[in-house]
């Protein structure tokens, strides 16, 4: 209770400094939030692209339809496979004509092979899995050829990995910056109360007792900074949605995680700062 009162008192006694520290924390987390938003939307876009990852296994001419149907149902039961559709020669031709639009006449009288078209489950669309499934499909004697756009899939994955790694690296960098800022603001609060702290120690207060209000303060500033950052990120996303491009926002769970992250940064920043001061005096 005393910790909360003392922490609140600091806000009351130095409102400008407190507002300034909450704002700096908010801006650090806002930068983090914006980057998170970009990463989230890239991921979302990539997932939409990945939905289109498809393996097409061409069937040799003259294969009995029952064999093809049996193979399609076998393949559909592979653990990685979402669905396996049988595409007859007629359907293949119709699809090609539809896809080519005004050049449909080119296919007049053409013969296209029948195929089994596979879609893989989400999370199973990485290059290695796609290749493994394609190789397995190839083992059917009546499968002539299997196409799945290896290069395209690999590029897609590389892009996704780069986005993920750079998001993580920048996120960590921003987290460290936020911690340093929180540490510095708490340090100012600690220095402002240096005399009080030295007297506390002199009369026998434990370090834990001295530390607690600062931890509460750091936590509160982290949460407030987090809330402000969340509001700013939401505002930025709304503006982007309105004027630039449709994007998605964090779901409630991620937003809560962001707030918790802010609180954690506040707590750690102040713990380091107070700890250092207490060791020094």
């Amino acid at each position, binding site marked *: 209770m*005393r910790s909360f009162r003392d922490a609140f008192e600091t806000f009351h006694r130095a409102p400008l400094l407190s507002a300034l520290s909450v704002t700096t924390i908010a801006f650090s987390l806002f930068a983090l939030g914006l980057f998170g938003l970009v990463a989230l939307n890239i991921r979302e876009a990539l997932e939409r692209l990945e939905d289109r990852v498809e393996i097409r296994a061409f069937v040799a001419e003259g294969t009995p339809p029952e064999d093809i149907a049996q193979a399609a149902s076998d393949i559909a039961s592979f653990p990685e496979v979402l669905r396996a559709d049988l595409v007859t020669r007629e359907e293949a031709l119709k699809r090609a004509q539809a896809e080519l639009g005004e050049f449909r006449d080119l296919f007049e009288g053409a013969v296209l092979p029948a195929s089994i078209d596979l879609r893989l489950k989400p999370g199973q669309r990485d290059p290695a899995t796609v290749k493994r499934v394609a190789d397995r499909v190839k083992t059917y004697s009546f499968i002539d050829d299997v196409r799945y756009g290896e290069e395209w899939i690999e590029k897609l994955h590389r892009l996704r990995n780069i986005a993920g790694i750079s998001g993580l690296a920048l996120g960590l960098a921003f987290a460290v910056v936020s911690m340093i800022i929180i540490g510095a603001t708490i340090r100012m609060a600690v220095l402002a109360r240096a*005399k*009080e702290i*030295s*007297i*506390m*120690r*002199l*009369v*026998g*207060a*434990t*370090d834990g*007792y*001295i530390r607690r209000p600062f931890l509460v303060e750091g936590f509160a500033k982290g949460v407030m900074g987090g809330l402000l950052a969340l509001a700013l990120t939401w505002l930025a996303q709304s503006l982007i949605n309105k004027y630039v491009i449709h994007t998605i926002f964090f779901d409630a769970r991620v937003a809560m995680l962001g707030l918790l992250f802010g609180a954690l940064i506040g707590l750690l920043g102040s713990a380091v700062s107070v700890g250092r001061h207490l060791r020094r005096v």
Partner: protein
Amino acid sequence: MIRFTRVTKTYPRTGTAVQDVSLTVNKGEFVLLTGASGAGKTSLLKMVYLEERPTSGEVRVAGTSSVTATARDVAKLRRKLGIVFQDFRLLDNRTVEQNVSFALEVIGAPTGVIGGKVNRVLTQVGLASKGRAFPRELSGGEQQRVAIARALVNDPFALIADEPTGNLDDRATRGIFQLLREINASSTAIIMATHNLELIRRQEYRTIEMARGQIVYDSAESTAMPRSTP
């Protein structure tokens, strides 16, 4: 109660402050610690309340050893000691009462007992009527009385005073010294670093003189006068 055994304190930058000091202060004793500036008095006192730890040797205070004490042990020890400085070290934004009660609050004393204890010590130091005043509204002597009240409020077994009258005029000095005598009369040990010649010459109390980090005279062990007067 307070025992120094072959204690040496060396600071990395300024060198040796206390050298091979052995000393015992018994319960209820009144000890005057004298010596020129830089003789090691403050370092010695800091080792009593474990603000500093010896570089070698051991300080043992009420069962707490400088060799093994944890931070928590140090905090607990300080609750049993009262510490007073030349510069009073009061919180300017708190009243006299609040300065004194602060010492009880920060060690988690029950709220119910704080008021009574504060009144008792403020009466003891003669400031019962000034509880609501702020330190800046008091004279130097009165401020030191507040600091003493704060040091006493936890019923310490010893009061450590580092030049408590250094900033005071003669009249205030006499008043503070009289107060310390009264406190000592109720069996609280007093260790007081001082330059005050008048007090030292009285030979009423145990006097220890330090020079260059060593004890050069201890009236408890010698009948001779201090070798030098500060």
